[in-house]
């Protein structure tokens, strides 16, 4: 029990790590949903070459483990002459990787849209971006919501990999606390509990949005 008191004594560090994980989650979630919507539009493009290129990107990401992709960004970009801080490379890796997954989820929801909906949107003069923004995306996002929220949980879990490039997120801070005070059990159990808390919050938010979607449909 005294081990947990040490963790309580270090709550500033723990909360800083938790906050960093949450910030990474929010940035990666917003950016990957927005970019994912754009990529989904490219996947659905009528131009074969565009759709093929987008599909290649999505497949490459889906084959690659997140950690490998993190290394690729962290060590690969400097060889191309771009050097970024650990935090920024971590965030970029999270965004680019999850954009592919978000795009694939939205493509699935998009395929289920009734064609008449898009056609009548076109008949009302919606074109290009405005067609996407006002006609296609709202139902696609509502439909894909449960899958998007489980992808958000995946982002939370992926963010723990960023400890290997020394981004000071939750797992990283907990590792340094356990290394200083030799209290691995308390440190990692606290970490697991906090991750659980984040994921329960995401699930609760998804439940609320789901209710909203139900109301909108009826």
């Amino acid at each position: 029990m005294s081990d947990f008191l040490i963790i309580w004594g270090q709550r500033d560090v723990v909360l800083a790590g938790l906050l960093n994980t949450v910030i990474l989650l929010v940035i990666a979630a917003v950016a990957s949903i927005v970019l994912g919507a754009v990529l989904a539009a490219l996947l659905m493009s009528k131009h074969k070459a565009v759709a093929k290129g987008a599909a290649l990107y999505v497949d490459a990401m889906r084959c690659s483990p997140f950690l490998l992709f993190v290394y690729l960004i962290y060590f690969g970009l400097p060889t191309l002459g771009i050097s970024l801080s650990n935090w920024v490379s971590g965030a970029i890796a999270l965004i680019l990787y999850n954009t592919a997954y978000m795009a694939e989820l939205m493509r699935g929801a998009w395929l289920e849209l009734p064609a008449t909906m898009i056609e009548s949107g076109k008949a009302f003069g919606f074109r290009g971006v405005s067609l996407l923004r006002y006609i296609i995306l709202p139902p696609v996002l509502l439909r894909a919501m449960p899958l998007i929220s489980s992808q958000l949980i995946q982002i939370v879990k992926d963010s723990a990999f960023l400890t290997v490039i020394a981004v000071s997120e939750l797992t990283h801070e907990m590792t340094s606390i356990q290394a200083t005070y030799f209290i691995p059990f308390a440190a990692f159990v606290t970490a697991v509990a906090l991750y659980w808390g984040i994921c329960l919050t995401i699930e609760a938010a998804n439940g609320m949005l789901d209710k909203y979607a139900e109301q909108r449909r009826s």
Partner: protein
Amino acid sequence: MTAYDYWSITRGALATISLSLVSILLGVPLGLALALIRWARVPVLSRLVYGYVSVVRSCPTVTLTLLVYFALPQLGLSLEPTGAAILALTVSTSAFNCEIWRSALVEFPRDQYDAARAFAMSRWVRLKLIVFPQIWRASLPALVNEMTLQIKSTPAVAVIGIVDITRAALRVGANTYQPLPPFIFALLLYGVIVFALLRVQRALERRQRVSGAMA
């Protein structure tokens, strides 16, 4: 990159494949057992399984691996890195597999189960001959999907010093000062492994169709 570098990354692939294989072979039946506990509504136990699945599903593999490797010795159970890695990966995949099996069990038509009971089949025979073949068929795509996710989460065990594909590629990159070629080779290896797994799934599905047609 020299031939030796390629070889060392390929050796990492052996570690990746064997760790994923062992954890899948342990995790799939374990997931089924957990799902059956929830399906049969065993008092207390099914509550515990619910909690276990909820916590493990939201726990990053890296954190879980660190927990198993560093925290269990404090409880008097110390494991070698390989054992800790297998335990962490099995715990993680069993929670996901439990949900997959459970959703197949929930969809399973109750009348068939009752009919088997009317034929005086014992509980074990009912599960083995009536329930299992059907939920296996229904769960296979989702199980394989989870296996590919499992292979992609194995690099997490590198944090306790196991040299898998990703770690081996990182080492080669550090030695040659050219990180891109080893990472791209590693990406290809993962692609090959995932592709091979999907082929196995296709083959299993074809066999199911054949045996389904004969029955």
